[in-house]
């Protein structure tokens, strides 16, 4: 059995665990609240959210029986970075720290040979930008979310 989707997400978690400066790496947990149950000791933290999986190439009409042909799918996991909250309203260095983690995560994901090999010859890594909480109406605590599109060949026969 080869569940490539799970392999890719596990590899993403492994990549994040090697990003320097992170005190905690989690998968599929709700947004970490700096004053909540998780405690401040685990910050700054990265949270990997699995996201969705969609076919990039439709397999409609390709099956001779019930099982369709192999297809190319795109996973869109999100990587949240939650910083240690500042002790005053000045938020000293928050923007710079978010930028620093953005670069670290991007470099780690884009340069990971194991991930590239896993995605295969029909695969692709796409960086789809980021969003932060540094905007009017948002929490302004120090969070950034990076969006990825990870394309890979899904062979149903190998599931």
């Amino acid at each position: 059995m080869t569940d490539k989707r799970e392999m890719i997400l596990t590899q993403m978690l492994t990549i994040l665990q090697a990003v320097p400066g992170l005190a905690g790496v989690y998968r599929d947990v709700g947004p970490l609240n700096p004053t909540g149950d998780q405690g401040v000791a685990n910050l700054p933290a990265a949270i990997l959210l699995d996201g969705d999986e969609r076919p990039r190439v439709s397999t409609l009409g390709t099956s001779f029986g019930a099982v369709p042909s192999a297809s190319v799918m795109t996973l869109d996991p999100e990587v949240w970075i939650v910083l240690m909250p500042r002790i005053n309203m000045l938020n000293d260095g928050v923007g710079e720290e978010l930028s620093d983690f953005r670069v670290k995560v991007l470099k780690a994901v884009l340069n990971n040979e194991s991930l590239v090999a896993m995605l295969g010859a029909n695969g692709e890594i796409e960086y789809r930008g980021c969003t932060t909480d540094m905007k009017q109406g948002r929490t302004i605590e120090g969070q950034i979310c990076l969006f990825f599109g990870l394309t890979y060949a899904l062979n149903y026969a190998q599931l």
Partner: protein
Amino acid sequence: MPTADGVTSPNTGNLLIGKGYLLFQPSGSASFYCVGNCPSMTITPKTTLLDHFDSQAGTKTKDLTVVTEKSMEVKIQMEEMTANNLSLLLLGDVDLTNPAQPIVNFFTQPSKTGHLKFYAANDVGPRWYVDIPSITFNPSGDWAPISDAFASMEATGTVNAQGGVWGTATLQLPLGTNVPENLVLPFIEGTEKVGNTLTVHAGAWVGASSFTYQWYKGVTAVYGATDQNYTLVSGDSGNTFHVVVTAHNAAGTQTATTANTGTIAA
């Protein structure tokens, strides 16, 4: 379990989502170069038919069709704005007097003829290697130096039959069955001066799942220099460097070696 064997049907493993590398060797050139990223490539065989109709009685009935002409077109969409690709579109020569700033002279040639190879790298569907010994390219698209999206250039080639041979398509084993195959040698980039960092690029491979690197100073392996980057230190001046790149996959390994750098300046 469906596998891409390209022979047995019905088999969903034979359905193809193509990927691969195009290599072109212009006539008179000693080597192939990689055309780079091509989002599409199409091969179109064409024939001209002469029909004969029986008109001895009643409605004319076609009773004979003869092929009077055969031709084949290859259309490629090129995305990499290299001097070689521009010269294919603009039918020009590349002036490499200053290799860092090549000049493409427009329309210095009536067409571009050469040898075209396609190495399939897809892992969805069968892999067909295509070899076209002689093809003549003419421009069929635009060059858009200004655009909001990634620009691409289209060139259309007419296959030349040489001694009755047009070309071949050969089925390859699925990726990972054989050791990786090197198509374009690895190469080193960077300024050859102490204090600067040199970077090795793996080149083009089919079937590689990972790479390892070993830097050599002269003929001696540099201990611990196994990254893609190497920063030149004072003891390196006066030497040349090369890198042995090893590609890995489940079937084994294959190596390829870069050309030597120039002599490292102090």
